[in-house]
């Protein structure tokens, strides 16, 4: 156990207390905390929209909210969750906190840009939030033209500007990570000695840097079309609406990998630590991350199989989509193999890890249904798609985020969370999640289209099940929110390394000092050297 206790040693949390010390900080750890507070806020905003939607869908008729309000709810749910929660979630919170420590650096390469990225996030967020409060937007998060550019009467422009601004926040964070990982690794920390979380953050950053600008310019063109009434995408004015979809999905499909790759990185850390065994197939795990990141750029057309895209292009995109499943399969098998002959301790983070693997497996395999041309024709734009991507984004990305938060909470705050409550919450979330989204697979194959405010009565039973699950899921999210805050004051003192984990971040005291390391560590071996540790302990 560490000789330090939270109250005596000097660390990033007690290095200054005023608002200035937070709002002008360039410390990556404080910026991570700022991000955590902001994205938690947006998570509950987005969750609130989702809950109202599920309430409306309890009955086939539109009796709770009007069609217009419902359309705004699902649009704002998607926009909030995708851009203001999921995309920044693991990179900006856990990534910001951990990347410099894991590579053995005192901070990211450009600390001021890092703070700037948070301010850009806040400005983009406030812009979008204001647009939502003063009227909202009803285009769906996909902004398909010509509806968004010509026909919608809601606040399309302010929301688009908010997302445009936000994009620069993503780019700056990613740029910082790429440069930090390339140039600031501690002596001896070669690429194949890096934790998989770093590989995941690197792959994610590459996607962010290369995809986000395309979203920015696409939304800018959408804005130009809407403001000046000129035709870029509107066929009535000579444009082609499918061009918008190509450009949009060139960003938005890789965006899914922006959400899931970091969670894969987190889960790799969790599994290997709590199995007390080196991750199986380290190099394959690392390269599969890069493979997903790069092949993931080439599959966007599978969102457009029934859009009027040519059948030939559909086949090309379908084949590429099947290929991108392979590196994902490699990851799942390797995680399972890591457990073999391990010594598994059931702490909360690994429960989230198991939950992730299971839900991601289902989410990934149902992705193959959507990559299959003939079948996608039927299930496209139905609840099958909704269920599929929530298995990836909520079952995958959010589970990974929560697992990571629990795993590194002792490092971030110096306190342990209450283990009993945490296990209970993980169980509630798992049950609530499956009850919410599994019925939606069936609904989708039955043919219930997405974005429907009213629906034929034969779909009701499944919708009631889904709403019941959503209630449980909602409560499940409130439990960690409460006990994590509680633990800040009442949690047990965590000590330097409560999980006996490897990795440079565990070499520093908890919470870490301002510049992370008094002396930059020198790395001499591979990561995850748990083997033989059992004997040492005895």
């Amino acid at each position, binding site marked *: 156990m560490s000789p330090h206790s939270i109250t005596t040693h000097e660390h990033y949390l007690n290095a200054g207390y005023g608002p200035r010390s937070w709002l002008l900080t360039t410390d990556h750890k404080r910026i991570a905390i700022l991000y955590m507070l902001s994205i938690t806020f947006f998570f509950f905003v987005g969750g609130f929209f989702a809950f109202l939607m599920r309430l409306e869908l309890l009955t086939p008729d539109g009796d709770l909210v009007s069609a217009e309000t419902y359309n705004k709810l699902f649009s704002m749910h998607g926009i909030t969750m995708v851009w203001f929660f999921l995309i920044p979630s693991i990179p900006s919170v856990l990534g910001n906190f951990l990347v410099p420590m894991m590579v053995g650096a005192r901070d990211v390469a450009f600390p001021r840009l890092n703070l700037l990225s948070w301010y850009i996030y806040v400005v983009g967020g406030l812009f979008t939030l204001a647009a939502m409060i003063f009227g909202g937007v009803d285009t769906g998060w996909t902004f398909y033209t010509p*509806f968004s550019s010509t026909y919608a009467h809601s606040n399309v422009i302010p929301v688009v500007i908010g997302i445009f601004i936000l994009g620069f926040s993503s780019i700056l964070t990613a740029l910082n990570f790429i440069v930090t990982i390339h140039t600031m690794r501690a002596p001896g920390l070669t690429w194949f000695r890096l934790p998989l979380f770093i590989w995941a953050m690197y792959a994610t950053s590459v996607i962010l840097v290369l995809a986000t600008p395309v979203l920015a310019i696409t939304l800018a063109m959408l804005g130009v079309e809407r403001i000046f009434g000129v035709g870029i995408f509107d066929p009535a004015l000579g444009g082609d609406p499918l061009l918008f979809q190509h450009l949009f999905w060139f960003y938005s499909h890789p965006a899914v990998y922006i959400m899931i790759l970091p969670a894969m990185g987190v889960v790799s850390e969790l599994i290997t630590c709590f199995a007390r065994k080196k991750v199986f197939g380290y190099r394959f795990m690392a390269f599969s991350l890069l493979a997903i990141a790069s092949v993931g750029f080439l599959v966007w057309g599978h969102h457009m199989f029934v859009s009027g895209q040519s059948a030939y292009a559909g086949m090309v995109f379908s084949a590429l989509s099947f*290929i991108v499943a392979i590196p994902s399969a490699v990851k799942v098998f390797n995680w399972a193999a890591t*457990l073999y002959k391990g010594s*598994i301790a059931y702490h909360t983070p690994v429960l989230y890890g198991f939950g992730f693997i299971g839900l991601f497996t289902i989410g990934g395999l149902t992705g193959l249904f959507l990559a*299959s041309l003939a079948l996608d024709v039927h299930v496209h734009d139905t609840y099958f798609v909704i269920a599929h991507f929530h298995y990836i984004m909520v079952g995958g990305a959010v589970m990974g985020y929560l697992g990571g938060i629990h795993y590194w909470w002792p490092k971030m705050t110096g306190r342990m969370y209450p283990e009993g409550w945490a296990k209970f919450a993980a169980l509630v979330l798992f049950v609530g999640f499956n009850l919410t989204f599994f019925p939606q697979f069936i609904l989708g194959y039955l043919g219930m289209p997405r974005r429907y405010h009213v629906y*034929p009565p034969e779909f009701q039973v499944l919708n009631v099940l889904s709403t019941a699950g959503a209630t449980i899921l909602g409560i499940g999210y409130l439990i960690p929110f409460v006990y994590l805050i509680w633990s800040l004051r009442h949690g047990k003192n965590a000590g330097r390394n409560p999980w006996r984990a490897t990795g440079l971040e565990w070499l520093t005291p908890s919470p870490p000092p301002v510049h992370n390391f008094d002396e930059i560590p020198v790395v001499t071996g591979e990561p995850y050297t748990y083997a033989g540790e059992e004997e040492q302990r005895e």
Partner: protein
Amino acid sequence: MMHGFPIFPPSASTAAPRVDALFTGLMIMTVFFSALIFFAIAFFAIRYREGSKANRDNPRSESLPLELTWMIVPLCISFGFYFWASTLYTQMHVAPPGAVDVYVVGKQWMWKIQHQQGNREINELHVPLGRPVRLIMTSQDVIHSFFIPAFRIKQDVLPGRYSTEWFQATTPGEYHFFCAQFCGTSHASMIGRVIVMQPAEYERWLAGAAGGAPMATVGEGLFQQFGCASCHLANNSGRGPALAGVAGSTVELEGGGTVVADREYLRESILDPAAKVVRGYKPVMPVFRGQLSPDQVAQLIEYIRSLGGPRVAAKGGTP
């Protein structure tokens, strides 16, 4: 007021059982791999729990043969499904010859349907049993999508061009159709029903009270009314080419190249005549974009298609 608890949609077209077979195949694969992973994790997690007496000798952290296995096996399975799904898609993509053509126009927020015999419907589609039916669809405003779950087909309906889908119904009855692409406030009300009828019954329905003049006849009236006839003279001496026999033929274009005069070309040439001008003619035809409704364009096309007979030699080139 519960309406039953179906978990599988009705299957009422020739495509439906084949799509369902693909679905079942993928389902078996999914259940197999999910079970494999779940079982492996559960088994390892219990057997190798902390403090258990399980044998942990020689723990391995890499194995090239294993990695190759779980790369190559999924790859082969993936490509199996890829070929299955793509072959089926190709077969489902192109309508067989002799299909019944029905025009569909989507607009916020209703479906307008026009049969060649002149019958018009809104949010209802009557079709004969056992005959292929092709929907020729366009939108008047935003993107819609025509989705018939019982037939397992769906196609986005775009403004400014025709998209098509086809089906052959196998079971009489009434089935939902939905708009599947979000199109604005009342998107969820843009639904209707397909009524599959026995052929004889269908013929009676076509001839019934709902019937009007056939589309081609109405189109002929429009052809006169909008002054098309003053240039497109039948003997090919006008400022525009004669239209008899044009539909479906290959047309040579001004500035090189050829185009097949399908519905899409005819539609474009009515709305935006300068886009692809027939060789030997000048782009003098007025633009009818905004002048004609999608229904009227369809009627004109049907009229042009009804002008059979040999094609009169084009003015500037060989026919």
